[in-house]
Every structure is written in structure tokens, then in C-alpha cells.
């Protein structure tokens, strides 16, 4: 059993390959998380606009991309783009798909955060002479982010886990590298190792989230 799932020889061989994959997973996360946050921020600020011509299409946009499995979006971009003469790389496809998908999720979370700040605060800030933009930046957003911090972190965890989809479009991230190593060695040890790396990397975040959630429940 140990020889099969935790073969030390294969472990030694696979480690450098997995390490390169881990580097790419981290790199990918560092790119897509801020990208998604940026998209979400724009969506959430637009959600404050009362005009129904902005409001309804925006809500449809968000629900559309929340209903769409990210893998379907990714495959659509990756397999579909060559047909219109665009050869998008796996990396570009992942970035676009994640921007659309996670942007919608971050947008919903930030919108809830912004709505949780009492309107009296906005009136007060405006009456002291702050502009609309200044009010958003200095008064509303800091409190909004604090109020929905557990949800933001939870979504970030999901986004980092989702980077494993990159393996489907041949991005050499952690899971892809593990599968390469596994198919060369005919042994599942690289996959076990990759799972272990994911777990070690993300466990602290899961623990933190669990505590934050419990505290939120205790307060309610």
C-alpha cells in the first residue's frame, strides 16, 4: 500500500516536476485573484446605480456567469477561439474565464458588503464635503470589506482551488504536472503528493475561515 501510494523513489523523481507546477499554481493564483477582485469591485460599484437600464443587465450578467460552470467557459474559450482565427493560449483562456466567473462571485459578495453599510454614513460623509468617489473609497469600501471578509476569503480559497482547471487546457500547474509524472511512472504517488501540497498550502486558510464563520454565528 505504502509502496503504491507513497513510493519514496518516485517521490524523489516527481518532486522537482511538482515544484515547477506549484510555482505555476502560485503564479496563476497571484494573477487571477486580483483580476477577479477588480472585476468584482467594478460590478459591485455599478450595482449602486439606480437606473434600471444598468441594474437589470448587470444582475443578468452576474447570474449568467454564476450559472455557468467555469470549466465550460474555459473549454468554450480554448476550443472555440481557434475557429475565429484567435489562438488563445491556455493561460489567456484561464485568465479570461476566471475574470468572468470569479468576478461575478466577488461582485455579489462586495455588493452585499456595500449594502451592509448604513446609508446614513454616506449622507454624513457627503455632507462633510467628501465627493462621491471619496465617500466610496474612504468610508463605504473599508467597512464593506470588513463586513464580508469571511466570504471574500472563502471565495479566494475557491479561486485558488479552481486554478487546478488549468490542467485541462495544458497549463503546467500542480495537477497537470502530477498527472504527467503519474503517466510516466505508472504510479499514483505524484497525485497523492500534489494533493498533499494543496492541503498543506490551503489548510491554514480553511482553519482561519472555520474560526471566522463560527465567530460570525456566535455574534448573530
Amino acid at each position, binding site marked *: *500500500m505504502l509502496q*503504491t*501510494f507513497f513510493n519514496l523513489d518516485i517521490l524523489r523523481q516527481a518532486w522537482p516536476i511538482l515544484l515547477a507546477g506549484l510555482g505555476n499554481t502560485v503564479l496563476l493564483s497571484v494573477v487571477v485573484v486580483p483580476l477577479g477582485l477588480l472585476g468584482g469591485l467594478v460590478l459591485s460599484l455599478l450595482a449602486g446605480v439606480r437606473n434600471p437600464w444598468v441594474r437589470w443587465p448587470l444582475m443578468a450578467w452576474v*447570474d*449568467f456567469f*454564476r*450559472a*455557468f*460552470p*467555469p*470549466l*465550460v467557459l474555459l*473549454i*468554450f474559450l480554448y*476550443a*472555440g477561439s481557434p*475557429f*475565429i482565427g484567435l489562438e488563445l493560449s491556455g493561460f489567456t483562456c484561464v485568465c479570461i474565464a476566471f475574470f468572468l466567473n470569479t468576478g461575478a462571485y466577488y461582485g455579489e459578495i462586495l455588493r452585499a458588503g456595500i449594502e451592509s453599510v448604513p446609508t446614513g454614513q454616506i449622507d454624513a460623509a457627503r455632507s462633510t464635503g467628501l465627493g462621491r468617489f471619496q465617500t466610496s473609497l474612504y468610508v463605504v469600501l473599508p467597512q464593506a470589506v470588513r463586513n464580508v471578509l469571511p466570504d471574500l476569503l472563502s471565495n479566494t*480559497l*475557491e479561486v485558488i*482551488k*479552481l*486554478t*487546478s*482547471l488549468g*490542467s*485541462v487546457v495544458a497549463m503546467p500547474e500542480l*495537477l497537470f504536472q*502530477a*498527472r504527467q509524472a*503519474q503517466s510516466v511512472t505508472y*504510479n*499514483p504517488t505524484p*497525485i*497523492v503528493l*500534489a*494533493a498533499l501540497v*494543496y*492541503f498543506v498550502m*490551503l*489548510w491554514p*486558510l*480553511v*482553519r482561519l475561515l*472555520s474560526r471566522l*464563520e*463560527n465567530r460570525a*454565528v*456566535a455574534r*448573530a
Partner: protein
Amino acid sequence: MGNWERFLDTFFNPKVMAKYLPDIAYGMLITVELAALVIVTGLAAGLALALLRSLGFRPVNLLLVFVVDLFRALPPLVIIVFIYFGLPTLELSPSGFVSTWLSLALVLMAFSEEIFWAGITSIPKGQWEAARSTGLSYGQTLINVVLPQALRLTIPPLTNRTIAITKGTALASVVAVSEILGMASSAVSNSYNPSPLTLGAGAYLVLFFPMVVFGRWLETRMRWKR
């Protein structure tokens, strides 16, 4: 042919779509089947774990929290790949369908256990004490007093999480299950036209868009009634 017509001919080719519509419809059936299995088993297992946790055996709970953390931290695709490619070395060869079902059900179990547990702990201790002092047993208190209130609280977060995890059925295409995405992908390579993907995307929207809208409605409805 203008650019627009060429675009339509590429992504919305009626001939190709008509040809592969039965395939996509069959894929939809598989997706629904897989999703239903994941939802029922995942939620049942999650509730069972939360109830087990409420009994308060420390060693059991430590193990339980570890299992929950494990399946919250691992990407679902990694679990699927492990079960599908890793277990056959043990003479067990789960099909792609079973691998995906098992993986997603474990993930949903972990997330729903957390939510159920949060719901149970949100019921004040005084209610437990009051119920027990009227002569209700532990089980009766749990079933008749605590759970009805706890479950109400958990419905909106549970719905959203369930939708998010159920969308993961598309991952089954990676392990050769002929669900919507798997069917659409093979149709694209057979017909050398991406229209089946458009059709597949439409099928996902038909299945999941109403669920997302329903989740949003639940959230707003329940927000002020806590």
C-alpha cells in the same frame, strides 16, 4: 459571406446543432442524474456528520473536523483524478461517473456539515435546557426543537453552496463521462465546428440559471426574517 454571417455559421451552425442535439440532450440526462446523486448523498452525509458532531465525543470530533477540512482544502478535480487514476492500482476501478459522484459528494458533505453545524450551534443553549427539562429526550430535542430552527437558517447558504458544487459535474468530462460537456467536446472534434459547445453552454444555462435565480430569491427573502 460577411463577418457576422461567418461568426453565426461557426458558433450557431443550424445543421451541426440539429445533428448533435440528441447527444447533448442525452448528456443533459447524465448531468441531471449525477447532480441529483451528488446532492442527495452529499447533503445526507453532511447532516449525518453534523448530528454526530453534536454528540460531543472529542476524539470523534477531531477526526471529523480533519476530514471536513481535508475536503474543503482539496480541489474537486484533484479528488476526481485521484479516485479515477489512483485507485485502479488497488484493483478497484471506479468508473468516471462513480469517481465524480464520490468526489463531489464528499466535497458537498464537508461544506454542508460546516453549514449544518453552524446552524445547530446558533440555537441558544437555553432552548436545549428548556426542552430537556420538559421531559424530551436528547433525540427528541434535536429533531423537534433544534433542527427545525437550525435548518431554516442554513437554507440560503446551503442552496448557494450546493449550486456551486453541482456545477462541478462538468469536471466529469475530464474522466470521460458523457455528460453535457463531454458530449459537446467530442461533437466539436467530430464535426470540426464549435456549435455543439454553444449548445452545451445553453444546456447548462437551462439547468443552472433558474437555480441561481432561486438562490438569489431565497437570500433576499430570508435576510430580514432571522
